[in-house]
């Protein structure tokens, strides 16, 4: 009988161990998640071309790079502790892991959207015409942020429109229906929608340059205990950047591979790159990270997130979560949960990796 009870207890306790996060101490194998987006395709290429493995070997660690099909799910998995690092935008880094109390570090500032996200109207030519319309977008995403900034620039606010939450997977199909007259979304959906008759881009992220930033985010504790992970990832990233920014066949081959993996071709991929400000040189990324503008951008993002209730229930104001940037901390210094760290990119810029 006692034996049975023990077995029962073991059966009960075992599944719980899965839920409980493992302690983050020095270790030598790491899991990195990525999702399809123009600025993150280099991770896929780096993984397939063995560049990640080469750098991991150099630092004597193992890095497993996994593609996740659903962007939000990948961040949720990272936040829950399933991954050590994950690609995401600055806003999602603040509202998902940081707001969940998972101290996260932006290790690599890869690019910012310079036209990749856009507000599109059907048969109307100016942003002012959006007034009173229903706007289909993925609510609480960077699209929502872009729209709010656009409305602000035209002297309007979200009260002047009605937001309809729409899955990004169905955005193109939805745009084809007569009920939909305005959308806000990102590439490659933007170029798909712009190719339909009557579509006009009335506002895009090139009008708020440097505010929608694509990052490689690492768990701060893991990074602190394992600087090797940061070095290997940064080293691998800037090796691909130098390949991509070249003018030779190697660069073209790399871009063809990335285009194919993201469901388009070289031409399509190049056109998406054109509306993305890639930091090919580590020094540029360092300069961007150290600039004062980053801090004020994060302040705007924090305010937007607080206004929409996505900083968490416990947040009394927009500065509840501290955001550390090289030019200073925004918000609560005692509750810093998101850190922009330029030291690893600096090492790459100095050729010290």
């Amino acid at each position: 009988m006692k034996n049975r009870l023990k077995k029962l207890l073991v059966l009960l306790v075992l599944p719980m161990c899965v839920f409980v996060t493992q302690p983050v101490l020095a270790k030598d194998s790491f899991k990195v998640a990525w999702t399809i987006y123009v600025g993150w395709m280099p991770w896929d290429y780096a993984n397939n071309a063995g560049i990640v493995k080469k750098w991991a070997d150099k630092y004597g660690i193992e890095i497993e790079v996994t593609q996740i099909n659903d962007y939000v799910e990948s961040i949720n998995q990272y936040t829950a502790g399933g991954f050590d690092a994950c690609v995401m935008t600055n806003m999602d880094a603040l509202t998902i892991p940081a707001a969940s109390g998972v101290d996260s570090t932006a290790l690599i500032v890869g690019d910012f959207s310079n036209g990749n996200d856009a507000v599109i109207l059907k048969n109307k030519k100016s942003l002012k015409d959006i007034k009173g319309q229903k706007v289909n977008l993925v609510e609480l995403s960077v699209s929502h942020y872009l729209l709010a900034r656009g409305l602000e620039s035209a002297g309007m606010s979200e009260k002047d429109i009605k937001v309809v939450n729409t899955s990004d997977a169905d955005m193109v199909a939805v745009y084809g229906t007569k009920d939909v007259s305005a959308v806000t979304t990102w590439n490659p959906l933007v170029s798909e929608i712009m190719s339909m008759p009557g579509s006009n881009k009335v506002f895009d992220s090139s009008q708020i340059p440097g505010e929608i930033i694509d990052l490689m985010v690492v768990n701060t504790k893991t990074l602190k205990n394992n600087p090797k992970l940061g070095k290997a990832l940064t080293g691998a990233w800037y090796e691909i950047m130098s390949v991509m920014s070249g003018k030779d066949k190697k660069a073209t081959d790399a871009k063809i591979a990335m285009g194919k993996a993201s469901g388009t071709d070289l031409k399509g991929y190049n056109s998406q790159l054109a509306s993305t400000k890639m930091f090919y040189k580590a020094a540029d990324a360092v300069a961007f990270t150290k600039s004062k503008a980053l801090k004020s951008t994060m302040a705007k993002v924090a305010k937007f997130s607080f206004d929409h209730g996505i900083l968490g229930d416990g947040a009394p104001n927009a500065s509840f979560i501290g955001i550390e940037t090289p030019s200073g901390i925004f918000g609560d210094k005692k509750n810093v949960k998101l850190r922009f760290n330029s030291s690893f990119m600096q090492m790459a810029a100095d050729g010290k990796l």
Partner: protein
Amino acid sequence: MKRIINRYPDRTLSVLLGALPFVLVLITYIMASNARLEENAHDKLLPSVSSMTTAVDKLAMQPSKRSGEYLFWLDTSSSLTRLGMGIGIAAIIGLVFGIINGSIPYVRANLSPFITAISLVPPLAVLPILFIVFGLGELSKVVLIAIGITPFIIRDMQTNVMELPAEQMIKAQTLGASSWLIIIRVVLPQVLPRLIGALRLSLGAAWLFLIAAEAIASTDGLGYRIFLVRRYLAMDIILPYVIWITFLSFFTDYLLKILSERLFPWFHATGK
């Protein structure tokens, strides 16, 4: 010694045994949640019971800051309206076509293969077409539910009609009943309780289609809220919503069962 298959628990023990799995799941959850929260007080994956209560209180008892509406009840009423309309339409179409298909061989030969084929098309895979045809408003959500479960109901009704004893039909004809009279007086009353049975079985699928529809393009609804707050991992809202949905479908199922027992006592008396 009595064989195990012949031993019955008494009433109290039955209730206790039935509750046991629920209690075990609850205890496991609370322990796992505590363990995670101890490590990170802001963990959102397995929120504490108290933070879930706060979240529900905020959504159900206090008007939303942005629109002044009680979001929880707004979501519930929109979802139930869509579900009710979808199931209602499916029931009517299913009943009519099921009976005609089952009773008239010419119609059956004509429609049955087509309906069988349609019932095998996964509706979610042809969503873009549904959007273009039915637009993006309430209609397309109701249509998705209806399309999702109608073919099943038609096929089930058809089978039920065809399983009615041939002797009954012969007897009715000997007494001079026309086709119409047989359908109305012999077939219809007998398949109505079976229609309720089929509806009860389709409830799960109907909820599935409802939530899928609300996830795609919507401004309210239980599925909408779940997919929206998923963006910031608000499990303190998602878990109570999931429990609420489970309760609602359980309750709907129970209501249908009671309805069937009240309306058709003869059907349940035979124990069939």
